[in-house]
């Protein structure tokens, strides 16, 4: 089973739709423990991403991810811009020149992304950030490989996001709240789950609509 350039493009379009639809929800989550701009910022960024990738004349996945990352860095404005942006740029570098990839290669992309996010965010797993979804997911995809069940992957992803509720924030604006951040979901972990849910839904539909 391979993941094609077209499927990845469809993923991003679907993810963007979902993020725009969930804009208010993400913003509410961020109002509880952050500065309340997560939904607005990400929507703005992904709207622009959709615009930019639809005019992209390539079938190189590395280039697709580079464009996604660059657009997010330039358009998002809040912390999620550099975080998501660097994840796609640095992670996507290993997919350069590829027109289709395996699940295992996608997990390698995630592992690279996780490294990049750790670098720029100076954070670790358990700090109530996007890493609490991206890191376990990278391992999960690596372990499951080609035998992955996309529905199960969606459930797994949301379980990871749910775990951030009991974590204490030590990074970002939420860190100012300390203990009071406990009991709230991390907005970045939730937006990450929307992102990956869209991917797994797209891949679950298979290759039929190439």
């Amino acid at each position, binding site marked *: 089973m391979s993941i094609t350039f077209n499927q990845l493009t469809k993923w991003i379009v679907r993810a963007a739709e979902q993020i725009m639809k969930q804009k208010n929800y993400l913003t509410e989550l961020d109002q509880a423990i952050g500065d309340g*701009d997560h939904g607005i*910022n990400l929507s703005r960024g992904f709207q622009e991403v959709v615009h930019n990738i639809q005019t992209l004349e390539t079938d190189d996945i590395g280039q697709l991810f580079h464009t996604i990352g660059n657009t997010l860095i330039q358009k998002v*404005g809040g*912390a999620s811009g550099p975080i998501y942006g660097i994840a796609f740029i640095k992670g996507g570098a290993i997919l350069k020149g590829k027109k289709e990839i395996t699940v295992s290669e996608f997990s390698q992309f995630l592992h690279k992304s996780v490294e990049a996010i750790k670098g720029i965010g100076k954070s670790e797993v358990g700090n109530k950030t996007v890493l609490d979804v991206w890191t376990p997911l990278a391992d999960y995809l690596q372990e499951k490989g080609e035998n992955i069940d996309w529905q199960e992957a969606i459930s797994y992803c949301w379980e990871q996001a749910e775990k951030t509720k009991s974590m204490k924030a030590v990074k*970002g*604006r939420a860190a100012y709240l300390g203990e009071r951040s406990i009991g709230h979901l991390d907005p970045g972990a939730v937006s990450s789950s929307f992102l990956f849910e869209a991917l797994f839904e797209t891949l679950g539909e298979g290759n039929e609509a190439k």
Partner: protein
Amino acid sequence: MSRYVGLVLISHSYDLAYGLKMIASQVEPDVPIAIAGGTEDNDIGTSVIKIKEAIESVYSDKGVILFFDLGSALMNAELAIDMLGNPQNVKIADAPLVEGVYAAAVESGCGADLEEALKVAEQTRLLEKKI
């Protein structure tokens, strides 16, 4: 070569960055100071592109010190430096924005080098304001 270390003021708010530049320029009108405030549309946020251009506009061999307000501005500042190829004489100050910029402007205006100006700016973290 410029005689002064350049300063870049990064804030989530354009107005905040602009206002701070007014304060610093009043005391040291000759020191090159650039601002990167707000997103590309001047909404609340920061912009890597604005930061990169601000650095370029005040860059010289003397170096540049970047000041930022809140966390995500730091990430964008680091990215901007990364995009410029990580020049060794562009530094990010770990300092309170207003006091740090003010101190660095004065130091730079007196002809301090990059390390000296950065050190004085970062020492403002320890300032007691009500003495």
